[in-house]
Protein backbone atom coordinates (compact mmCIF):
# COMPACT_ATOMS: atom_id res chain seq x y z
CA UNK A 1 0.00 0.00 0.00
CA UNK A 2 2.84 2.35 0.85
CA UNK A 3 4.28 1.69 -2.56
CA UNK A 4 0.95 2.56 -4.19
CA UNK A 5 0.81 5.84 -2.35
CA UNK A 6 4.43 6.55 -3.25
CA UNK A 7 3.67 5.74 -6.86
CA UNK A 8 0.73 8.12 -6.86
CA UNK A 9 2.77 10.88 -5.28
CA UNK A 10 5.71 10.37 -7.61
CA UNK A 11 3.62 10.43 -10.77
CA UNK A 12 4.36 13.83 -12.35
CA UNK A 13 0.97 13.79 -14.05
CA UNK A 14 -0.67 14.18 -10.65
CA UNK A 15 1.27 17.34 -9.86
CA UNK A 16 0.63 19.53 -12.84
CA UNK A 17 -2.44 20.88 -14.57
CA UNK A 18 -5.61 22.50 -13.30
CA UNK A 19 -6.49 19.59 -11.02
CA UNK A 20 -2.88 18.90 -10.04
CA UNK A 21 -1.32 18.85 -6.60
CA UNK A 22 0.62 22.08 -7.13
CA UNK A 23 -2.40 24.13 -8.05
CA UNK A 24 -4.61 22.62 -5.35
CA UNK A 25 -1.93 23.16 -2.71
CA UNK A 26 -1.66 26.75 -3.81
CA UNK A 27 -5.45 27.20 -3.60
CA UNK A 28 -5.55 25.50 -0.21
CA UNK A 29 -2.88 27.84 1.08
CA UNK A 30 -4.51 30.86 -0.52
CA UNK A 31 -7.91 30.21 1.09
CA UNK A 32 -6.34 29.68 4.48
CA UNK A 33 -4.14 32.76 4.37
CA UNK A 34 -7.03 34.83 3.09
CA UNK A 35 -9.36 33.59 5.84
CA UNK A 36 -6.86 34.17 8.64
CA UNK A 37 -5.86 37.60 7.33
CA UNK A 38 -9.49 38.65 6.89
CA UNK A 39 -10.28 37.52 10.43
CA UNK A 40 -7.14 39.15 11.81
CA UNK A 41 -7.88 42.53 10.25
CA UNK A 42 -10.90 42.82 12.53
CA UNK A 43 -10.03 40.49 15.40
CA UNK A 44 -6.62 41.98 16.25
CA UNK A 45 -7.77 45.60 16.61
CA UNK A 46 -10.86 44.43 18.48
CA UNK A 47 -8.80 42.21 20.79
CA UNK A 48 -6.36 45.04 21.45
CA UNK A 49 -9.22 47.39 22.23
CA UNK A 50 -10.92 44.94 24.60
CA UNK A 51 -7.64 44.06 26.30
CA UNK A 52 -6.58 47.68 26.62
CA UNK A 53 -9.85 49.01 27.97
CA UNK A 54 -11.08 45.85 29.70
CA UNK A 55 -14.48 46.48 28.15
CA UNK A 56 -16.33 43.50 26.69
CA UNK A 57 -13.97 40.80 27.92
CA UNK A 58 -16.94 38.61 28.88
CA UNK A 59 -18.02 38.68 25.24
CA UNK A 60 -14.66 37.34 24.07
CA UNK A 61 -14.96 34.26 26.24
CA UNK A 62 -18.64 33.63 25.47
CA UNK A 63 -18.16 34.14 21.74
CA UNK A 64 -15.06 31.96 21.68
CA UNK A 65 -16.83 29.13 23.47
CA UNK A 66 -19.89 29.34 21.25
CA UNK A 67 -17.91 29.17 18.01
CA UNK A 68 -15.78 26.36 19.40
CA UNK A 69 -18.89 24.27 19.87
CA UNK A 70 -20.06 24.79 16.27
CA UNK A 71 -19.54 21.69 14.12
CA UNK A 72 -17.39 22.86 11.22
CA UNK A 73 -18.97 20.45 8.76
CA UNK A 74 -22.43 21.77 9.64
CA UNK A 75 -21.31 25.36 9.21
CA UNK A 76 -19.70 24.64 5.85
CA UNK A 77 -22.60 22.62 4.42
CA UNK A 78 -25.18 25.07 5.78
CA UNK A 79 -23.51 28.10 4.25
CA UNK A 80 -22.86 26.32 0.97
CA UNK A 81 -26.47 25.31 0.68
CA UNK A 82 -27.86 28.73 1.52
CA UNK A 83 -25.54 30.48 -0.92
CA UNK A 84 -23.03 28.43 -2.89
CA UNK A 85 -19.83 26.47 -2.50
CA UNK A 86 -17.58 29.50 -2.25
CA UNK A 87 -19.61 30.70 0.73
CA UNK A 88 -17.56 28.13 2.63
CA UNK A 89 -14.83 30.77 2.58
CA UNK A 90 -17.01 32.83 4.90
CA UNK A 91 -17.16 29.83 7.24
CA UNK A 92 -13.36 29.82 7.32
CA UNK A 93 -13.27 33.47 8.35
CA UNK A 94 -15.90 32.89 11.03
CA UNK A 95 -13.89 29.98 12.43
CA UNK A 96 -10.61 31.90 12.40
CA UNK A 97 -12.06 34.93 14.11
CA UNK A 98 -12.47 33.79 17.75
CA UNK A 99 -9.02 32.19 17.89
CA UNK A 100 -7.30 35.42 16.83
CA UNK A 101 -9.58 37.52 19.02
CA UNK A 102 -9.06 35.50 22.18
CA UNK A 103 -5.32 35.18 21.51
CA UNK A 104 -4.97 38.94 21.13
CA UNK A 105 -7.12 39.65 24.16
CA UNK A 106 -5.31 37.08 26.28
CA UNK A 107 -1.99 38.55 25.14
CA UNK A 108 -2.84 42.07 26.23
CA UNK A 109 -4.38 40.74 29.40
CA UNK A 110 -1.20 38.81 30.23
CA UNK A 111 1.09 41.84 29.96
CA UNK A 112 2.58 42.26 33.46
CA UNK A 113 0.34 44.68 35.35
CA UNK A 114 3.34 46.37 36.96
CA UNK A 115 4.83 47.21 33.55
CA UNK A 116 1.57 48.83 32.47
CA UNK A 117 1.33 50.63 35.80
CA UNK A 118 4.89 51.88 35.40
CA UNK A 119 4.13 53.02 31.84
CA UNK A 120 1.20 55.02 33.14
CA UNK A 121 3.21 56.40 36.02
CA UNK A 122 5.96 57.55 33.68
CA UNK A 123 3.50 59.56 31.66
CA UNK A 124 2.77 57.43 28.62
CA UNK A 125 -0.51 58.31 26.92
CA UNK A 126 -3.12 55.62 26.40
CA UNK A 127 -2.01 55.11 22.80
CA UNK A 128 1.67 55.05 23.73
CA UNK A 129 0.96 52.38 26.35
CA UNK A 130 -0.88 50.29 23.79
CA UNK A 131 1.75 50.53 21.06
CA UNK A 132 4.93 50.66 23.09
CA UNK A 133 4.14 48.32 25.97
CA UNK A 134 1.01 46.23 25.54
CA UNK A 135 1.30 45.21 21.88
CA UNK A 136 4.95 44.07 21.95
CA UNK A 137 4.36 42.06 25.11
CA UNK A 138 1.09 40.60 23.80
CA UNK A 139 2.78 39.21 20.68
CA UNK A 140 3.55 35.67 21.93
CA UNK A 141 -0.09 34.95 22.77
CA UNK A 142 -1.37 36.97 19.82
CA UNK A 143 0.72 34.88 17.45
CA UNK A 144 -0.45 31.79 19.31
CA UNK A 145 -3.98 32.82 18.45
CA UNK A 146 -3.04 33.26 14.79
CA UNK A 147 -1.46 29.79 14.76
CA UNK A 148 -4.57 28.29 16.33
CA UNK A 149 -6.72 30.05 13.77
CA UNK A 150 -4.54 28.70 10.99
CA UNK A 151 -4.83 25.12 12.31
CA UNK A 152 -8.56 25.44 12.40
CA UNK A 153 -8.77 26.92 8.93
CA UNK A 154 -6.35 24.39 7.40
CA UNK A 155 -8.53 21.56 8.66
CA UNK A 156 -11.78 23.18 7.63
CA UNK A 157 -10.52 23.98 4.14
CA UNK A 158 -9.91 20.26 3.63
CA UNK A 159 -13.49 19.59 4.71
CA UNK A 160 -14.90 22.38 2.56
CA UNK A 161 -13.89 20.49 -0.58
CA UNK A 162 -16.99 18.43 0.11
CA UNK A 163 -19.17 21.41 -0.84
CA UNK A 164 -17.07 22.27 -3.86
CA UNK A 165 -14.30 24.53 -2.53
CA UNK A 166 -10.98 23.75 -4.18
CA UNK A 167 -7.78 22.78 -2.43
CA UNK A 168 -6.15 19.53 -1.40
CA UNK A 169 -9.40 18.32 0.13
CA UNK A 170 -10.77 18.17 -3.37
CA UNK A 171 -8.22 15.49 -4.35
CA UNK A 172 -9.19 13.53 -1.24
CA UNK A 173 -12.94 13.72 -1.80
CA UNK A 174 -12.55 12.85 -5.48
CA UNK A 175 -10.36 9.90 -4.58
CA UNK A 176 -13.07 8.75 -2.22
CA UNK A 177 -15.74 9.08 -4.90
CA UNK A 178 -13.81 6.83 -7.29
CA UNK A 179 -12.65 4.57 -4.41
CA UNK A 180 -8.95 5.16 -5.01
CA UNK A 181 -7.34 4.85 -1.63
CA UNK A 182 -3.90 5.76 -3.02
CA UNK A 183 -5.18 9.18 -4.10
CA UNK A 184 -7.07 9.72 -0.83
CA UNK A 185 -4.09 8.78 1.29
CA UNK A 186 -1.75 10.89 -0.85
CA UNK A 187 -4.05 13.87 -0.48
CA UNK A 188 -4.30 13.26 3.28
CA UNK A 189 -0.51 13.16 3.58
CA UNK A 190 -0.22 16.39 1.58
CA UNK A 191 -2.88 18.05 3.73
CA UNK A 192 -1.03 17.02 6.88
CA UNK A 193 2.34 18.14 5.49
CA UNK A 194 1.00 21.51 4.40
CA UNK A 195 -0.59 22.09 7.81
CA UNK A 196 2.61 21.22 9.66
CA UNK A 197 4.68 23.29 7.25
CA UNK A 198 2.49 26.37 7.58
CA UNK A 199 2.51 26.00 11.36
CA UNK A 200 6.32 25.86 11.26
CA UNK A 201 6.42 29.00 9.13
CA UNK A 202 4.15 30.76 11.62
CA UNK A 203 6.34 29.55 14.47
CA UNK A 204 9.33 31.06 12.66
CA UNK A 205 7.41 34.27 12.07
CA UNK A 206 6.60 34.39 15.79
CA UNK A 207 10.31 34.17 16.60
CA UNK A 208 10.97 37.06 14.23
CA UNK A 209 8.17 39.24 15.54
CA UNK A 210 8.34 38.67 19.27
CA UNK A 211 10.97 40.90 20.91
CA UNK A 212 13.90 38.99 22.37
CA UNK A 213 13.29 40.26 25.89
CA UNK A 214 9.75 38.89 25.82
CA UNK A 215 10.97 35.53 24.51
CA UNK A 216 13.33 35.34 27.49
CA UNK A 217 10.39 35.80 29.85
CA UNK A 218 8.44 33.08 28.03
CA UNK A 219 11.42 30.72 28.24
CA UNK A 220 11.98 31.51 31.91
CA UNK A 221 8.42 30.94 33.07
CA UNK A 222 8.01 27.95 30.78
CA UNK A 223 4.76 29.37 29.50
CA UNK A 224 4.08 28.00 26.05
CA UNK A 225 4.05 30.79 23.48
CA UNK A 226 0.87 29.32 22.13
CA UNK A 227 -1.58 29.88 24.91
CA UNK A 228 -4.71 27.84 25.02
CA UNK A 229 -5.28 25.35 22.25
CA UNK A 230 -8.37 25.65 20.18
CA UNK A 231 -10.23 22.91 18.44
CA UNK A 232 -9.66 22.51 14.76
Amino acid at each position, binding site marked *: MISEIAAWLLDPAHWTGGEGVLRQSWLHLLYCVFAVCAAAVIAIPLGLYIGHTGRGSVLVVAFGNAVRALPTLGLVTGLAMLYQGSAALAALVVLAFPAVLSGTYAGVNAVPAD*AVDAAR*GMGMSSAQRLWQVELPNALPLLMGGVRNAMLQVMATTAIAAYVGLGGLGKLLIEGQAIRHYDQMASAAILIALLAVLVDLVLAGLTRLLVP*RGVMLVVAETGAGPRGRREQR
Partner: protein
Amino acid sequence: MIEFRSVRKQYDDGTVAVQELSLTVPAGTVTVLVGPSGCGKTTLLRMVNRMIEPSSGAVLLDGGDVRDSEPARLRRGIGYVIQQAGLFPHRTVRDNVATVPRLFGHGRREARRRAEGLLERVGLPSEIGKRYPAQLSGGQQQRVGVARALAADPPVLLMDEPFSAVDPVVREGLQDELLRLQGELGKTVLFVTHDIDEAVKLGENVAVLRQGGYLAQYAPPEQLLAEPADDFVTSFVGRDRGYRRLSFVDSSGLRAGSVDTVRIGDTSADVPSQAGWVLVLDTHDRPRGWLPPEATIHGQLTEDQLIAGGSLHTGGAPLRGALDAALSSPSGLGVVVDEDGVYLGVVTARQVLEILESGRHPAVSEGAFR
Protein backbone atom coordinates in the same frame (compact mmCIF):
# COMPACT_ATOMS: atom_id res chain seq x y z
CA MET B 1 7.37 70.47 48.10
CA ILE B 2 4.32 68.21 48.06
CA GLU B 3 1.27 69.27 49.98
CA PHE B 4 -1.78 67.14 50.69
CA ARG B 5 -4.68 69.42 51.63
CA SER B 6 -7.58 67.61 53.34
CA VAL B 7 -7.49 64.86 50.74
CA ARG B 8 -10.06 62.12 51.00
CA LYS B 9 -10.62 59.09 48.83
CA GLN B 10 -13.82 57.15 48.81
CA TYR B 11 -14.43 54.45 46.23
CA ASP B 12 -17.72 53.81 44.48
CA ASP B 13 -18.44 50.81 46.70
CA GLY B 14 -18.26 53.06 49.75
CA THR B 15 -14.88 52.01 51.13
CA VAL B 16 -12.83 54.94 52.29
CA ALA B 17 -9.14 54.59 51.48
CA VAL B 18 -8.02 57.95 52.85
CA GLN B 19 -9.82 60.12 55.41
CA GLU B 20 -9.51 63.90 55.30
CA LEU B 21 -5.75 63.99 55.52
CA SER B 22 -3.27 66.84 55.38
CA LEU B 23 0.45 66.43 55.13
CA THR B 24 3.38 68.46 53.85
CA VAL B 25 6.40 66.80 52.32
CA PRO B 26 9.35 69.22 52.51
CA ALA B 27 11.39 69.71 49.35
CA GLY B 28 14.70 67.92 49.08
CA THR B 29 13.96 65.37 51.81
CA VAL B 30 12.92 61.76 52.07
CA THR B 31 9.45 61.41 53.57
CA VAL B 32 8.15 57.94 54.29
CA LEU B 33 4.52 56.83 54.44
CA VAL B 34 4.37 53.71 56.57
CA GLY B 35 1.52 51.57 57.81
CA PRO B 36 -0.17 48.18 57.56
CA SER B 37 -1.96 47.14 54.38
CA GLY B 38 -5.20 48.99 53.85
CA CYS B 39 -3.97 52.18 55.48
CA GLY B 40 -4.15 54.17 52.26
CA LYS B 41 -0.43 54.83 51.90
CA THR B 42 -0.24 53.78 48.25
CA THR B 43 -3.46 55.65 47.48
CA LEU B 44 -1.92 58.78 48.93
CA LEU B 45 1.26 58.34 46.91
CA ARG B 46 -0.62 57.76 43.68
CA MET B 47 -2.59 60.95 44.16
CA VAL B 48 0.59 62.92 43.54
CA ASN B 49 0.97 61.81 39.92
CA ARG B 50 -2.78 61.54 39.42
CA MET B 51 -2.82 57.77 39.08
CA ILE B 52 -5.64 58.18 41.60
CA GLU B 53 -7.77 61.29 41.90
CA PRO B 54 -8.88 62.34 45.39
CA SER B 55 -12.64 62.49 46.02
CA SER B 56 -12.14 65.82 47.74
CA GLY B 57 -9.24 68.02 48.77
CA ALA B 58 -6.21 68.87 46.69
CA VAL B 59 -2.63 67.82 46.13
CA LEU B 60 -0.19 70.66 45.52
CA LEU B 61 3.16 70.28 43.88
CA ASP B 62 5.40 73.29 44.50
CA GLY B 63 2.29 75.31 45.19
CA GLY B 64 0.38 74.35 42.04
CA ASP B 65 -2.62 72.04 42.04
CA VAL B 66 -1.69 68.82 40.22
CA ARG B 67 -5.14 68.85 38.63
CA ASP B 68 -4.04 71.82 36.55
CA SER B 69 -1.53 69.65 34.70
CA GLU B 70 -2.42 67.15 32.03
CA PRO B 71 -1.79 63.70 33.63
CA ALA B 72 0.73 62.30 31.14
CA ARG B 73 2.74 65.53 31.13
CA LEU B 74 2.65 65.73 34.93
CA ARG B 75 3.86 62.14 35.29
CA ARG B 76 6.82 62.61 32.94
CA GLY B 77 8.11 65.17 35.40
CA ILE B 78 7.80 62.84 38.41
CA GLY B 79 9.95 59.77 38.95
CA TYR B 80 7.99 56.62 39.77
CA VAL B 81 9.38 53.38 41.19
CA ILE B 82 7.15 50.40 42.09
CA GLN B 83 7.51 47.12 43.91
CA GLN B 84 8.28 44.72 41.06
CA ALA B 85 10.21 47.48 39.26
CA GLY B 86 7.70 47.24 36.41
CA LEU B 87 10.42 47.09 33.78
CA PHE B 88 9.30 46.57 30.20
CA PRO B 89 10.23 42.97 29.35
CA HIS B 90 10.55 43.70 25.64
CA ARG B 91 13.10 46.49 25.96
CA THR B 92 16.75 46.29 26.88
CA VAL B 93 17.77 47.73 30.23
CA ARG B 94 19.24 50.75 28.46
CA ASP B 95 16.06 51.42 26.51
CA ASN B 96 13.99 50.97 29.65
CA VAL B 97 15.97 53.70 31.33
CA ALA B 98 15.73 55.86 28.22
CA THR B 99 11.91 55.70 28.21
CA VAL B 100 11.04 59.07 29.72
CA PRO B 101 13.69 61.07 27.86
CA ARG B 102 12.28 59.49 24.68
CA LEU B 103 8.77 60.50 25.75
CA PHE B 104 10.10 64.01 26.12
CA GLY B 105 11.18 63.81 22.50
CA HIS B 106 14.93 63.39 22.94
CA GLY B 107 16.77 61.48 20.24
CA ARG B 108 17.47 57.79 20.74
CA ARG B 109 21.22 58.27 20.84
CA GLU B 110 21.13 60.99 23.44
CA ALA B 111 18.58 59.14 25.57
CA ARG B 112 20.71 56.01 25.51
CA ARG B 113 23.85 57.89 26.44
CA ARG B 114 22.08 59.41 29.40
CA ALA B 115 20.73 55.98 30.34
CA GLU B 116 24.21 54.53 30.46
CA GLY B 117 25.37 57.30 32.76
CA LEU B 118 22.44 56.64 35.06
CA LEU B 119 23.11 52.92 35.24
CA GLU B 120 26.57 53.70 36.49
CA ARG B 121 25.10 56.16 38.94
CA VAL B 122 22.90 53.47 40.55
CA GLY B 123 25.85 51.12 40.80
CA LEU B 124 25.35 48.90 37.76
CA PRO B 125 28.07 48.10 35.22
CA SER B 126 27.29 49.70 31.85
CA GLU B 127 27.46 46.29 30.03
CA ILE B 128 24.18 45.46 31.73
CA GLY B 129 22.51 48.06 29.52
CA LYS B 130 22.34 45.65 26.60
CA ARG B 131 20.62 42.91 28.60
CA TYR B 132 16.91 42.33 29.04
CA PRO B 133 15.06 42.58 32.35
CA ALA B 134 14.51 38.80 32.42
CA GLN B 135 18.30 38.39 32.62
CA LEU B 136 18.68 40.47 35.80
CA SER B 137 18.36 39.59 39.48
CA GLY B 138 15.60 41.18 41.54
CA GLY B 139 18.01 43.62 43.13
CA GLN B 140 19.44 44.64 39.76
CA GLN B 141 15.93 45.13 38.38
CA GLN B 142 15.13 47.49 41.23
CA ARG B 143 18.29 49.49 40.57
CA VAL B 144 17.25 49.77 36.93
CA GLY B 145 13.81 50.88 38.13
CA VAL B 146 15.43 53.66 40.14
CA ALA B 147 17.64 54.65 37.22
CA ARG B 148 14.61 54.77 34.94
CA ALA B 149 12.75 57.00 37.37
CA LEU B 150 15.73 59.35 37.53
CA ALA B 151 16.32 59.46 33.79
CA ALA B 152 14.58 62.77 33.10
CA ASP B 153 16.06 64.29 36.27
CA PRO B 154 12.68 64.88 37.94
CA PRO B 155 12.68 66.96 41.14
CA VAL B 156 10.18 64.57 42.76
CA LEU B 157 10.48 60.81 43.18
CA LEU B 158 7.57 58.56 44.17
CA MET B 159 8.62 55.15 45.45
CA ASP B 160 5.95 52.55 46.19
CA GLU B 161 7.41 49.69 48.26
CA PRO B 162 10.33 49.57 45.86
CA PHE B 163 12.46 47.17 47.90
CA SER B 164 9.81 44.85 49.39
CA ALA B 165 10.22 42.08 46.85
CA VAL B 166 13.96 41.52 47.32
CA ASP B 167 15.69 39.56 50.08
CA PRO B 168 16.83 41.37 53.25
CA VAL B 169 20.54 41.52 52.40
CA VAL B 170 19.94 42.98 48.95
CA ARG B 171 17.30 45.29 50.40
CA GLU B 172 19.79 46.76 52.82
CA GLY B 173 22.23 47.40 49.98
CA LEU B 174 19.51 49.12 47.96
CA GLN B 175 18.53 51.27 50.94
CA ASP B 176 22.13 52.38 51.49
CA GLU B 177 22.41 53.09 47.78
CA LEU B 178 19.28 55.22 47.88
CA LEU B 179 20.62 57.24 50.79
CA ARG B 180 23.91 57.76 48.97
CA LEU B 181 22.09 58.85 45.82
CA GLN B 182 19.82 61.14 47.77
CA GLY B 183 22.91 62.71 49.32
CA GLU B 184 24.12 63.54 45.81
CA LEU B 185 20.82 64.51 44.23
CA GLY B 186 18.66 65.99 46.98
CA LYS B 187 15.32 65.01 45.42
CA THR B 188 11.96 65.35 47.09
CA VAL B 189 11.23 61.71 47.77
CA LEU B 190 7.90 60.26 48.89
CA PHE B 191 8.49 56.65 49.89
CA VAL B 192 5.85 54.07 50.79
CA THR B 193 6.64 50.99 52.86
CA HIS B 194 5.01 48.67 55.39
CA ASP B 195 8.36 48.05 57.08
CA ILE B 196 8.94 50.34 60.06
CA ASP B 197 12.68 49.59 60.07
CA GLU B 198 12.93 50.76 56.49
CA ALA B 199 10.86 53.84 57.30
CA VAL B 200 13.07 54.78 60.24
CA LYS B 201 16.24 54.14 58.27
CA LEU B 202 15.32 56.15 55.18
CA GLY B 203 12.91 58.85 56.31
CA GLU B 204 13.79 62.31 57.49
CA ASN B 205 10.10 62.47 58.30
CA VAL B 206 7.84 59.49 58.79
CA ALA B 207 4.06 59.48 58.51
CA VAL B 208 2.47 56.50 60.25
CA LEU B 209 -0.93 55.64 58.79
CA ARG B 210 -3.61 53.51 60.35
CA GLN B 211 -6.10 51.18 58.63
CA GLY B 212 -8.91 53.16 57.08
CA GLY B 213 -6.66 55.98 55.97
CA TYR B 214 -6.00 57.92 59.16
CA LEU B 215 -2.76 59.75 59.85
CA ALA B 216 -1.64 58.47 63.26
CA GLN B 217 1.59 60.43 63.62
CA TYR B 218 3.87 62.53 61.46
CA ALA B 219 7.30 63.13 62.93
CA PRO B 220 11.03 62.64 62.43
CA PRO B 221 11.96 59.01 63.15
CA GLU B 222 13.75 59.66 66.45
CA GLN B 223 10.70 61.42 67.80
CA LEU B 224 8.48 58.62 66.54
CA LEU B 225 10.56 56.13 68.51
CA ALA B 226 10.88 58.29 71.61
CA GLU B 227 7.33 59.62 71.82
CA PRO B 228 4.80 57.49 69.95
CA ALA B 229 1.56 59.46 69.73
CA ASP B 230 -0.80 56.64 70.67
CA ASP B 231 -1.14 52.91 71.28
CA PHE B 232 -1.35 52.15 67.58
CA VAL B 233 1.95 53.84 66.82
CA THR B 234 3.53 52.23 69.90
CA SER B 235 2.57 48.75 68.77
CA PHE B 236 3.43 49.46 65.15
CA VAL B 237 6.86 50.80 66.04
CA GLY B 238 7.40 47.63 68.03
CA ARG B 239 8.67 46.49 71.42
CA ASP B 240 12.33 47.00 70.70
CA ARG B 241 11.89 50.64 69.81
CA GLY B 242 14.16 51.57 72.74
CA TYR B 243 17.01 49.64 71.20
CA ARG B 244 16.21 50.97 67.75
CA ARG B 245 16.21 54.50 69.10
CA LEU B 246 19.93 54.08 69.76
CA SER B 247 20.36 54.61 66.04
CA PHE B 248 19.41 58.21 66.60
CA VAL B 249 21.45 58.89 69.73
CA ASP B 250 24.78 60.59 69.19
CA SER B 251 27.72 58.79 70.81
CA SER B 252 29.90 61.87 71.28
CA GLY B 253 29.31 61.73 75.05
CA LEU B 254 30.99 58.36 75.17
CA ARG B 255 34.49 58.36 76.71
CA ALA B 256 36.65 55.67 75.16
CA GLY B 257 38.97 53.82 77.57
CA SER B 258 42.19 52.07 76.72
CA VAL B 259 43.43 48.49 76.53
CA ASP B 260 46.83 46.86 75.99
CA THR B 261 47.77 46.60 72.31
CA VAL B 262 50.37 44.78 70.26
CA ARG B 263 51.14 44.70 66.54
CA ILE B 264 51.17 41.91 64.01
CA GLY B 265 54.76 40.75 63.69
CA ASP B 266 55.69 41.50 67.32
CA THR B 267 57.47 38.73 69.23
CA SER B 268 56.56 37.36 72.62
CA ALA B 269 58.99 39.76 74.23
CA ASP B 270 56.93 42.73 73.07
CA VAL B 271 53.69 41.37 74.46
CA PRO B 272 52.79 42.94 77.80
CA SER B 273 52.09 40.88 80.91
CA GLN B 274 48.96 39.06 79.96
CA ALA B 275 46.42 39.48 82.69
CA GLY B 276 43.63 40.47 80.29
CA TRP B 277 42.64 40.62 76.64
CA VAL B 278 45.09 42.28 74.28
CA LEU B 279 44.02 44.06 71.11
CA VAL B 280 46.12 43.37 68.04
CA LEU B 281 46.69 46.15 65.48
CA ASP B 282 48.30 46.14 62.07
CA THR B 283 51.12 48.48 61.03
CA HIS B 284 48.60 51.24 60.28
CA ASP B 285 47.05 50.95 63.75
CA ARG B 286 43.92 49.28 62.44
CA PRO B 287 42.42 46.56 64.70
CA ARG B 288 42.93 42.99 63.44
CA GLY B 289 41.66 40.86 66.34
CA TRP B 290 42.24 39.86 69.95
CA LEU B 291 44.67 37.78 71.99
CA PRO B 292 42.96 36.02 74.92
CA PRO B 293 44.40 36.33 78.45
CA GLU B 294 47.43 34.08 79.18
CA ALA B 295 47.96 33.35 75.47
CA THR B 296 51.43 32.11 74.59
CA ILE B 297 53.06 33.36 71.44
CA HIS B 298 55.63 31.35 69.57
CA GLY B 299 57.93 33.50 67.48
CA GLN B 300 56.28 36.33 65.65
CA LEU B 301 52.59 37.16 66.10
CA THR B 302 50.64 36.22 62.97
CA GLU B 303 47.00 36.64 61.94
CA ASP B 304 46.10 33.01 62.50
CA GLN B 305 46.89 33.24 66.22
CA LEU B 306 44.16 35.83 66.70
CA ILE B 307 40.55 35.59 67.74
CA ALA B 308 38.40 37.54 65.32
CA GLY B 309 37.00 40.76 66.69
CA GLY B 310 33.43 41.98 66.70
CA SER B 311 31.96 44.91 64.82
CA LEU B 312 33.75 48.26 65.01
CA HIS B 313 32.28 51.49 66.23
CA THR B 314 33.19 54.67 64.42
CA GLY B 315 33.61 57.50 66.90
CA GLY B 316 30.70 59.97 66.80
CA ALA B 317 28.37 57.55 64.98
CA PRO B 318 25.05 56.65 66.66
CA LEU B 319 25.17 54.84 69.97
CA ARG B 320 23.67 51.67 68.51
CA GLY B 321 27.00 50.93 66.82
CA ALA B 322 28.88 51.30 70.11
CA LEU B 323 26.56 48.92 71.93
CA ASP B 324 26.79 46.46 69.07
CA ALA B 325 30.60 46.66 69.05
CA ALA B 326 30.74 45.95 72.80
CA LEU B 327 28.25 43.08 72.69
CA SER B 328 29.85 41.38 69.67
CA SER B 329 33.44 41.66 70.90
CA PRO B 330 34.98 38.48 72.39
CA SER B 331 36.59 40.59 75.14
CA GLY B 332 33.40 42.49 75.94
CA LEU B 333 35.23 45.66 74.92
CA GLY B 334 33.87 47.45 71.86
CA VAL B 335 36.61 48.84 69.66
CA VAL B 336 36.25 52.47 68.64
CA VAL B 337 37.97 53.63 65.45
CA ASP B 338 38.13 56.87 63.50
CA GLU B 339 36.82 57.27 59.97
CA ASP B 340 39.98 55.73 58.49
CA GLY B 341 39.59 52.69 60.70
CA VAL B 342 42.46 53.67 63.04
CA TYR B 343 42.15 52.49 66.64
CA LEU B 344 40.99 55.16 69.12
CA GLY B 345 39.95 53.25 72.25
CA VAL B 346 37.45 50.79 73.70
CA VAL B 347 34.02 51.06 75.32
CA THR B 348 31.91 48.69 77.40
CA ALA B 349 28.20 47.99 77.12
CA ARG B 350 27.82 49.40 80.64
CA GLN B 351 29.15 52.77 79.48
CA VAL B 352 26.53 52.88 76.72
CA LEU B 353 23.76 52.07 79.17
CA GLU B 354 25.01 54.67 81.62
CA ILE B 355 24.79 57.35 78.97
CA LEU B 356 21.23 56.33 78.22
CA GLU B 357 20.23 56.23 81.88
CA SER B 358 21.76 59.57 82.70
CA GLY B 359 19.73 61.02 79.87
CA ARG B 360 22.41 63.58 79.21
CA HIS B 361 22.85 62.46 75.62
CA PRO B 362 22.36 65.32 73.23
CA ALA B 363 19.50 65.04 70.71
CA VAL B 364 20.62 63.52 67.49
CA SER B 365 22.03 66.00 65.07
CA GLU B 366 20.70 66.17 61.53
CA GLY B 367 21.99 63.31 59.45
CA ALA B 368 24.15 61.86 62.21
CA PHE B 369 23.07 58.39 61.25
CA ARG B 370 23.79 58.76 57.61
